[in-house]
């Protein structure tokens, strides 16, 4: 009962401390979401508390995710002129990104010794959870593994994405946003929106385009790759 009531204050409090830590030492590994998740996971593992109760207690927070994704439309609308101007470049980059993600996700899992069921579960991880899970199910993967890899892909992008892209010389705001949305879905986009509105808008755009492309392409591409092995 206590946990049920404390779940949200515990989350927000930890997040706040993590935010201060990140403000003091702005390192990618100190990404506030990453630190908060790891701290809470460590807490539940150490104490043996039931994290299901925590998850029930944080339902209102999780429930806000849907309206938050809807709200991204505002960023997109504010960038409408820029989106129209570079639509071809956006479409080409997202198409290549989805192709890379599906092929590497499948092939690397198989090369590292995973079964084809595992490879199919990991293929669609770059897109938002509901799309990724239903795609995984359609191509013979295990949706639970997909859900886990979607979170890991999101965390990786949100924490290390902008530093990684900067090192590669990708600093154009539209390019960074698009790259983060394409590889780390809503989590990468949320991080982009914190950085600036252009990144947030292009992240949202990639989120939408890549979700559509992945659900169309994966049912053909992944079985083809697995069949060829």
């Amino acid at each position, binding site marked *: 009962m206590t946990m049920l009531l404390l779940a949200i204050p515990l989350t927000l409090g930890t997040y706040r401390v993590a935010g201060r830590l990140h403000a003091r030492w702005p390192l990618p590994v100190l990404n506030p979401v990453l630190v908060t998740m790891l701290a809470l996971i460590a807490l539940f593992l150490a104490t043996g508390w039931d994290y299901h109760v925590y998850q029930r207690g944080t339902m209102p927070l999780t429930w806000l995710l849907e309206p938050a994704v809807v709200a991204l439309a505002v960023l997109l609308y504010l960038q409408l002129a820029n989106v129209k101007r570079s639509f071809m470049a956006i479409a080409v980059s997202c198409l290549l990104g989805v192709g890379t993600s599906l092929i590497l996700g499948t092939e690397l899992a198989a090369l590292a010794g995973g079964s084809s069921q595992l490879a199919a579960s990991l293929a669609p991880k770059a897109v938002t959870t509901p799309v990724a899970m239903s795609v995984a199910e359609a191509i013979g993967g295990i949706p639970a593994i997909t859900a886990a890899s979607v979170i890991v892909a999101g965390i990786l992008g949100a924490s290390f994405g902008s530093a990684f892209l900067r090192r*590669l010389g990708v600093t154009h705001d539209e390019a960074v946003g698009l790259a983060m949305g394409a590889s780390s879905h809503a989590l990468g986009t949320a991080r982009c929106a914190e950085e600036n509105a252009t990144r947030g808008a292009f992240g949202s755009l990639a989120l939408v385009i890549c979700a559509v492309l992945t659900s169309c392409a994966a049912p053909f591409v992944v079985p083809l790759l697995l069949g060829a092995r």
Partner: protein
Amino acid sequence: MLRIVRDLLVIMVFAEVGRGLTSLLPFSFPGSIIGMLMLFVALSAGWIKLSIVEAGAGVLIKYMAVMFVPIGVGLIGYIGLLEHNAAAFLVSTFVSTFVSMAVVGGVYQRLRS
């Protein structure tokens, strides 16, 4: 404050309608993305004014990152499953995330310059 509440209500209507529409689709697709597209179309077509969603959208987007924490904590439930497949899981997830990120960012930046 009242303005934010009104904005949130408008956004939630879009989220709910989006969710309702998913049940009519022959394939599964997130209601939130349909809601986002509908709100985008409504704004672009001038059916609703930016000012009736802007402040609320700002608040939601500002706090969006923390909403992922409970989902991430849910990884605890997958520990057993992941232990058996750790190598394939990690290699596939790490490499394909960063490579596809580099491809999208690099290609777009080159096409635009």
